[in-house]
């Protein structure tokens, strides 16, 4: 006699796995290749800019205009820490959802969204600051590859914030009972993926000279 999973009776596949979870993992797999192409492009163009400003060195143009180094490591380190902790926040929210602790789920989910918003705020400030320092999208190879890579990551963070906010609204309305915790788990998996991409981008872009 076979057993029936009451929580997800219509989503099981022949593998015995939930098809929504298979779908999000397949999507995350495809996203790995997307970001690999962007990181690869950044690496092959690294150090090949003919004109400044440069990420780690000061530069004076032939016309005598002086440019400071672009990166500010303390700010981006703080943003990285916040994004890392947001991954912890979302697993705590998921634990709350699975144990039927609505207060815990809503609290940690709100903290995750706030952390994500802080990271995006940091990135907006960083981009604005870099533009004031003379680094535009078409200034040099560094500018083009840097803004493309980190901009796409920031877009993914923004999409993650929107997704988590919709889950938060459902949670507040009491529509995420323990048997529907998978709805939060799928959003959490996407959020963790966004985090692991930044785990690669941070040292490759900001710390490697």
């Amino acid at each position: 006699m076979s057993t029936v999973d009451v929580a997800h009776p219509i989503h099981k596949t022949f593998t015995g796995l939930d098809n929504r979870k298979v779908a999000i993992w397949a999507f995350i797999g495809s996203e790995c290749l997307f970001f690999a192409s962007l990181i690869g492009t950044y690496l092959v163009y690294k150090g090949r800019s003919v004109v400044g400003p440069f990420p780690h060195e000061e530069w004076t143009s032939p016309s005598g205009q002086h440019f400071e180094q672009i990166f500010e490591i303390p700010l981006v380190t703080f943003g990285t820490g916040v994004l890392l902790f947001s991954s912890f926040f979302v697993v705590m929210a998921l634990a709350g959802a699975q144990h039927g602790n609505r207060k815990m789920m809503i609290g940690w989910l709100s903290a995750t969204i706030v952390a994500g918003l802080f990271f995006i705020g940091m990135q907006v400030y960083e981009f604005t600051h870099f533009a004031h320092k003379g680094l535009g999208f078409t200034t040099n190879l560094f500018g083009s590859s840097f803004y493309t890579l980190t901009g796409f990551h920031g877009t993914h963070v923004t999409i993650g914030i929107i997704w988590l906010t919709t889950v938060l609204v459902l949670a507040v309305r009491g529509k995420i009972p323990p048997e529907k915790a998978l709805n939060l788990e799928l959003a959490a998996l996407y959020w963790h993926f966004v985090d692991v991409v930044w785990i690669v981008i941070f040292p490759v872009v900001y710390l490697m000279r």
Partner: protein
Amino acid sequence: MEDTIHKTTLTREGPWPSVVKYIKVAVVLFALTALEVLAYEIVDEGAPAALAAAIEPVLVAILLVLSAAKFVLVGAFYMHLKQDSVFFSSLFVFPIAVAGMLVAVLIVLFSYMNSLY
């Protein structure tokens, strides 16, 4: 019967980590990030001089190892790949392997092209 076969081949069915484990992982992730930035700052500031000279040639390797450790920790414990189905792990690990090869091939190709001109 069929269900049983799929369960034994595709799922690990292990219990998910406890809250204490999540906290421990968060602390380790924070510590590894601090080590990354510390290694960069020592080389950037050149102080202490002896340590900076020792770290500089291996800075990239240090950063890659620390980054990989953080990646594995988040994947294994926060994304629950250590406890979840092997099928999900393969859906994640195979594209990462292809992605790694893609980046390596791009670097080799462009290095070769640049050596020609």
